[in-house]
């Protein structure tokens, strides 16, 4: 026991010597950054990266609110950046002054949640739509509308999976019905509930995990999915088609930010700047299957990514992107009520 403790202490002592550049504690979504990229950063800068992971914006928020320190860089999504700024959890480090910030393309250089980019830098962005296996739907093609998902053809009964997420489902239904996603009107919420209730018997399940594998194994025909996951689905299921619904679809983006009280702030800024270099962010895109907002990165991206309309969105579809809003507690209470009634 004692010997092990000594060995550990020696290891710590040595790690301090080897990594003269110090350390960086990155808190990211699980399976969302290639470890090789972190090693490359270590080689380039001498800064050792420690990675810890979480599974939702809400658990990240809960952890920071509970007073977690020890993280230097976190990766909140759009609406969560706004909440964290409002809660005073983020350090105002003026990301816009970093040398590589010039590489950030519109619209993510001035997003609604951080218009001056004082707190955050873009990582990946994506959209939430749905994927179907064109080999197994009647006629081989479905209309590019949320109708195909919420009211699928009868042949697809029990072959459709929805994401098990209150926000994803509520927003998708609100787009389909052209209702404000932050509605505080119970009558409109009732309409959304009716649509979800009508869809429920057609569904095999609600599940946000394993979307790629489930489609590839042909366990189901249609899956509510993110475009990057759709790209990875296609690697094995060539007949998969990702739909950009014409009514609009949730457009999200994840961001690097530095929480207040970070111990290695300089290294954090170094990392964020380094990640805004095209050759580095491209490696992340190649791994995740999601696009980024850095000019010139497509040169370094895999051909399969560049040629896939699910990742490299055709210009005509970009007008269908709808950013997530931050809703009032009243609107959120209504969402919760719809979700509870849907699953009571």
């Amino acid at each position, binding site marked *: 026991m004692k010997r092990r403790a000594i060995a550990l202490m020696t290891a710590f002592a040595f790690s301090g010597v080897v990594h003269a550049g110090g350390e960086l504690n990155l808190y990211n979504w699980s399976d969302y950054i290639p470890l090789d990229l972190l090693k490359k950063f270590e080689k380039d800068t001498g800064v050792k990266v420690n990675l810890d992971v979480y599974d939702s914006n*809400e658990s990240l928020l809960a952890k920071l609110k509970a007073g977690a320190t020890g993280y230097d860089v976190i990766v909140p999504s759009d609406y969560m950046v706004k909440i964290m700024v409002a809660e005073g959890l983020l350090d105002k480090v003026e990301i816009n002054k970093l040398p590589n910030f010039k590489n950030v393309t519109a619209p993510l250089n001035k997003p609604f949640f951080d218009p001056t980019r004082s707190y955050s830098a873009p990582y990946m962005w994506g959209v939430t739509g749905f994927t179907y296996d064109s080999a197994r739907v009647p006629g081989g093609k479905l209309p590019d509308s949320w109708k195909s998902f919420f009211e699928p053809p009868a042949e697809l009964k029990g072959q459709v999976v929805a994401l098990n997420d209150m926000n994803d489902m509520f927003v998708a239904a609100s787009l389909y019905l052209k209702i404000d996603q932050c509605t505080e009107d119970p009558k409109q919420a009732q309409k959304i509930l009716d649509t979800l209730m009508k869809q429920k018997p057609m569904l095999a399940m609600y*599940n946000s995990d394993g979307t790629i594998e489930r489609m590839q194994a042909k366990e189901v025909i249609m899956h509510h999915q993110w475009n990057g996951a759709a790209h990875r689905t296609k690697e094995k299921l060539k007949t998969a088609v990702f739909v950009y619904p014409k009514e609009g679809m949730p457009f999200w983006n994840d961001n690097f930010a530095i929480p207040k009280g970070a111990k290695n702030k300089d290294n954090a800024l170094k990392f964020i700047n380094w990640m805004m270099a095209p050759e580095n962010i491209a490696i992340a895109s190649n791994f995740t299957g999601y696009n980024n907002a850095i000019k010139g990165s497509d040169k370094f991206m895999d051909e399969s990514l560049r040629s896939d309309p699910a990742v490299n969105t055709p210009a005509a579809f970009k007008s269908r992107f709808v950013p997530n809003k931050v809703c009032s*507690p009243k609107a*959120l209470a209504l969402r919760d009520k719809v979700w*509870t009634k849907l699953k009571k």
Partner: protein
Amino acid sequence: MLSASVRRTGLLAPTVITLFVFMVLPMGLMAWMSFLEPGTYGGVQWGHYSAKSYIQFLYEWDLDDQLVLNTDYVGIFLRSFLLAGGATLATLLIGFPTALYIALKDEKARNRWILLISIPFWTNLLVRTFAWMLLLRNGGLAEQFLSSIGLVKEELNILYTPTAVAIGLVYSFLPFMILPIYTSLEKMDWKLVEAAFDLGANRWMAFRRVILPLAMPGIVAGCMLVLIPALGSYFIPELLGGGKSLMIGNLIQNQFGASRNWPFGAALSFALLTVVMVTMIAYNLRFKRAPGADK
């Protein structure tokens, strides 16, 4: 020399401190939180008290701000109790004969059986639940087996139904039923059963009047050990049930997560705690007087 009272205090201190730090403190915090107003972005507003969370459990505000009865949450509680109760009953029906069978073996065989029963614990429950998904899915091993013996004609269609959840719960909690019952049967004096036969009891009477009462402490302990965690089970219904209906655990998790209503989550936890406590107290009162109870 320490006086007797000082020594008593010193000896009691670890227990009292443990109970305070690990039970009173967190539960007090939870109770306090359930009477606060929710914060706009999660968390609570300290100092803003309200009983809204408890009212929300039973009522909702309609369009004219009138309170009307809302059975959604009670319904979710009921379903969880039905499922957990069903799982308890099923584990008892399977577990009791199993424990009795093991208890009647010689010592070497007994140890082997107990080892076999505890082997599943070597693997994480989450992994085992995923294994069940592979077994139960259409085209999976269960379907192949059942169709080979002619019980199933077409697809099994059992995964993502309440049946799959029930199977998962019974499977996960069965050892918690077998082990306490086995423990109480193992230390039983079998001469009492022989005596019962000598006094003219038939097999059923000996079982009902002698074995069952003596096994009762184990049965009660087993039921508690199955019912309570089954009530709070979270990922088994989520994975095997396909997330189509909420259980208490999922409901509470949602309040601390996406719905950002921590006080309501705390109130739901407290409601669950209260129901469990009442059940346990009732059990205790009932079985204190039972002939088989320890004293």
